[in-house]
């Protein structure tokens, strides 16, 4: 229906961010892979199903569409642990 560059410029309001984003944002949000809401948000704009099938392997699709959701608090704890590791790394004296 449209070429890739035009598609990338299409805009939708991101319910997570609270602002307008281009399609290019949604298809690269998770470390270069699409946001897990990409179908929910874009299905009415163009045939996102066909786009995904064309551009990604089934294993990739499973991974980005179905990230294992965690409780908010558990997510925070994961981030705290990661942050502690980052802080330790920064504070490590030079060898």
């Amino acid at each position, binding site marked *: 229906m449209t070429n890739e560059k035009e598609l990338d410029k299409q805009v939708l309001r991101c319910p997570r961010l609270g602002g307008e984003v281009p399609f290019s944002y949604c298809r690269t949000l998770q470390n270069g892979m699409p946001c897990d809401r990409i179908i929910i948000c874009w299905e009415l704009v163009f045939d996102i199903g066909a786009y995904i099938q064309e551009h990604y392997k089934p294993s990739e699709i499973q991974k980005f*569409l*179905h990230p294992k959701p965690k*409780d908010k608090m*558990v*997510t925070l704890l994961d981030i*705290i642990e990661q942050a*502690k590791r980052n802080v330790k790394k920064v504070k490590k004296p030079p060898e």
Partner: protein
Amino acid sequence: MEVKKILLTEDEMPRQWYNIAADMPTPLQPPLHPGTGQPIGPEDLAPIFPMNLIEQEVSTERWIDIPEPVLEVLSIWRPAPLVRAYALEKALDTPARIYYKNESYSPPGSHKPNTAVAQAYFNKIAGTKRITTETGAGQWGSALSFAGAMFGIEIVVWMVKISYQQKPYRRLMMNTWGATCYASPSTQTEAGRKILEKDPDTPGSLGIAISEAVEAAVSDENTKYALGSVLNHVMLHQTIIGLEAQKQLEKVGDYPDIVIGCAGGGSNFAGLSFPFARDKIFGKDIKIIAVEPTSCPTMTRGPFAYDFGDTVQMTPLLPMHTLGHDFIPAPIHAGGLRYHGMAPLVSQLVLDGIIEPRAIHQLETFEAGVTFARTEGIIAAPETNHAIAAVIQEAKKAKEEGKEKVILFNMSGHGLVDLAAYDAYFSGKLNDYELPEAEIERALKAIEPLPKPKVAEK
């Protein structure tokens, strides 16, 4: 002239927040620590939250006192007016009486400072010198910046880079209130530097921004982190909205048949609805509707109708339609059927049948927002438009049924800093593609054989 605004004086402001955890039909199970498998304890959260807020997070006390200094700051705009939407009623030619709680009066223009002020205060008395946070388009960041200014606490905000570049006004609001705002990913943290090393042009994400804000809090004992949605203490602080609304409706001798709020992170919805949910738990006949965005009609028409992804953070907020751990839906046409693994207060109330979820797609929400602006005069935030769209649906239904329903909703914020969204709507950039009926049927057929969640059927 008819009374349009129902007002309370400062003396009539609620002196306590309502904690619904005390009245939950099904008490929440504590989340488990990913490392130990044991329930998360206060010490696990201590690196980022002050103990007084952690105590609120796990409290099951029904009423929690609002400290006087918090009330003093809230009184800058509270009690917020309850407004009868006569013009909207007239435009819809409905017998329904529509009321809205106008939370757009706060200095940052939304409900968010209700918890930002409380969190800044509790941090202040706990000795915190600096609070960090992340923000998407800047609503939460600006609310916390305002609150920090009121209590003399330094605020540092990581704003997702794509918004930082596109949305200068919220950033300028933060700066005006004295906060520091970084585009995320930034070079200020190890988390940000790692991402930038890999991809210097990344637009950022909320996930990265939260990592930066948490890292900054963990790095310094005088620094804590604040979150504007999802957590129990945030919901608690917002209940002042519903508690005020109850007093105001009592003044005019009305009581809602339907309570409506938009549910992103859940906090504005919880704030209005929890005091009424309490009434429902104890026998009142009220419909309480949480509205969430979707653009897919299979969500609203399908047997597993709603996807309540956490619109603020990385994890889903409202896990209402659990299909089981071992179920992996087909990748295409099943976006709304994902397994959701957690049960915070709002989602548990959905599971218990106290709250009814509803999904509305974006064109209908903007249409509703424009109707509201052209009748009641207020340009609502795009998120708030979801609630307005549901109000209009219910008001039309009341007309069809010839019933004088009382509808209450939360006008959670104005959209004056979100006019780009209206521009996108007016210029046709948000045009919907009408999914063919056959395609919808095909999609619904595909999910027919799937196991039905025990609690999803009404």
